[in-house]
């Protein structure tokens, strides 16, 4: 199969085109800002969808990894003079090690116990970020020095847009390759039935740990970039509500769909911005929309719509 024929590359090229052409339609920098947030959320959601959608393991604590990535990178670079890129990589390494350490016992849990375990982990991270005032500045948050690499400083929303755009493409490429590889087939097998997968010779625990750590590292990277981009972070990034938002993006867009995670991230990032016109009714509307979409499109937007189109086409 050549590069251009495979549907995998087709989607990637289309995404690259969208990312490249989208700025032409932006009237002001506010749109760049929203697009960057969508990109960062999408990176986390693609990792999370590998875990939830493909491996069938829920996590209600990924905002914890996002927040930890943001804070470790910020503290290392702003308070200890570590070069920003190294700080970002060290944060990813630390989060990866933490995720690996807890993955074995956590991935042993099933269903609602797993939901509770990941939720507890995320909340503990959020509480630590809130309480260690000397290190993190506590609930008031902390400023982050701007990013620089060998004297080059990305400044302004436009440059960050391209950085996040490239990272998003790389993440999608990585995820698409992963699910088409033996790893992806193993994940889908253990989603179907862990016992059957184990009987077929798949090391179930190893694959679950692998995908958990991968998704945690992606969340950490997005968190670090977020810290450098906004220049100010609060423990709110790590809180339970943010974890729920991330899961909602994945489920809304469609489980086991890489582009679904992207669409879900886009919708749930834009929606609150649009709903601000409702002022006091904003939260009510958000809850209502979430419920309605999930009741009427149980499989999420992208799989439901794709199914509709496919049926009409045939």
């Amino acid at each position, binding site marked *: 199969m050549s590069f251009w024929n495979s549907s995998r590359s087709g989607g990637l090229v289309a995404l690259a085109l969208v990312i490249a052409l989208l700025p032409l339609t932006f009237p002001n920098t506010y749109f760049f800002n929203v697009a960057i947030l969508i990109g960062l959320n999408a990176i986390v959601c693609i990792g999370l969808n590998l875990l939830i959608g493909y491996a069938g393991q829920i996590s209600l604590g990924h905002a914890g990894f996002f927040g930890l990535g943001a804070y470790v990178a910020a503290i290392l670079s702003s308070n200890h003079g570590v070069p920003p890129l190294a700080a970002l990589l060290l944060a990813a390494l630390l989060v990866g090690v933490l995720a690996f350490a807890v993955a074995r016992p956590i991935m042993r849990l099933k269903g609602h116990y797993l939901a509770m375990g990941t939720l507890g982990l995320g909340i503990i991270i959020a509480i630590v970020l809130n309480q260690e005032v000397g290190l993190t500045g506590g609930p008031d948050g902390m400023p982050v020095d701007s990013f620089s690499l060998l004297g080059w400083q990305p400044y302004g929303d436009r440059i960050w847009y391209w950085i996040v755009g490239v990272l998003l493409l790389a993440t999608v490429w990585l995820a698409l390759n992963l699910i088409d590889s033996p790893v992806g087939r193993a994940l889908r097998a253990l989603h179907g039935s862990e016992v059957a997968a184990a009987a077929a010779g798949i090391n179930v625990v190893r694959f679950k740990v692998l995908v958990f750590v991968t998704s945690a590292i992606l969340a950490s990277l997005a968190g670090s970039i977020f810290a450098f981009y906004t220049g100010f972070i609060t423990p709110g990034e790590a809180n339970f509500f943010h974890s729920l938002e991330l899961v909602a993006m994945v489920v809304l867009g469609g489980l086991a769909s890489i582009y679904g995670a992207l669409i879900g991230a886009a919708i749930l990032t834009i929606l609150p911005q649009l709903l601000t016109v409702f002022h006091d009714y904003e939260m*009510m509307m958000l809850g209502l929309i979430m419920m309605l979409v*999930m009741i009427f499109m149980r499989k999420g937007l992208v799989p439901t719509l794709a199914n509709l189109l496919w049926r009409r086409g045939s």
Partner: protein
Amino acid sequence: MADFLQFLFSGITVGATYALVGLGFAIIYNASHVINFAQGEFVMLGGMSAVFLMHLGLPLPAVIPLAVVATMAVGVALEKLAIEPARNASVVTLIIITIGASIFLRGSAEVIWGRSFHSMAPFTGSEPIDIGGAALLPQSLWVLGGTIVAVVALKWFFGRTRTGKAMQASAFNPYAARLVGIDQRFILMLSFALSGLFGAVAGILIAPISLTYSGVGVMLGLKGFCAAILGGMGNPFGAIMGGLLLGISEAMTAGYISSAYKDAVAFLIILLVLFFLPSGLFGKRRTERV
């Protein structure tokens, strides 16, 4: 010793609230295998509507049943309008629906009652009772008494009434229960009504001790979930023990170690327990059938 007693009293009081919330989780889980993340909002609705009714000048004996019935009605509406239409959806989808419901209820509460904190007068006086040098608020006795009554009533309901036995049967084996003619849709509705009841009772009892506001249900809901998991999901009486255990450990940590990390205790305990006993303290050890 006085200190210890003091921490114990406050731990049991808060723990009783967690227990009631955990009970709601367990009842709904048993009937439908749904984790209802809107459970904490039932607590908020109970407390807020009680405060609101008091402001209208109603006497306490009228306020309590009205607030409870209102919350139960919300529970039933949630089940009828959001859970039942999505009956066969996957667990994650159902979780997102209840999260949407929780956001919706909190948003509605902010629209109706605003975002400010409200206080409620204790049921019977605020003069603390001295026991061994520790002060016990009369309201704490109400919380404890209310919880005991609720638990005994639930035990009676499950063990002695036809409907309660039908609920137990459905939890044990939904297919067999349906075969003998138990209406699953009724059971599901009843479970949401009951869990609304326990949530509201918790919210009303605790309102005079801790202030109540539109966001009060978030942490209470999560701690209640901890209680239910700690006791072994789907075991209502395990949830009671789990709630008391969490409340007491939290109070002891706040008193003797650090009040800053008080909220982390429940989650730390739950992680440790899950690492070593993956199905909770009182949960059934399951072997997987293939």
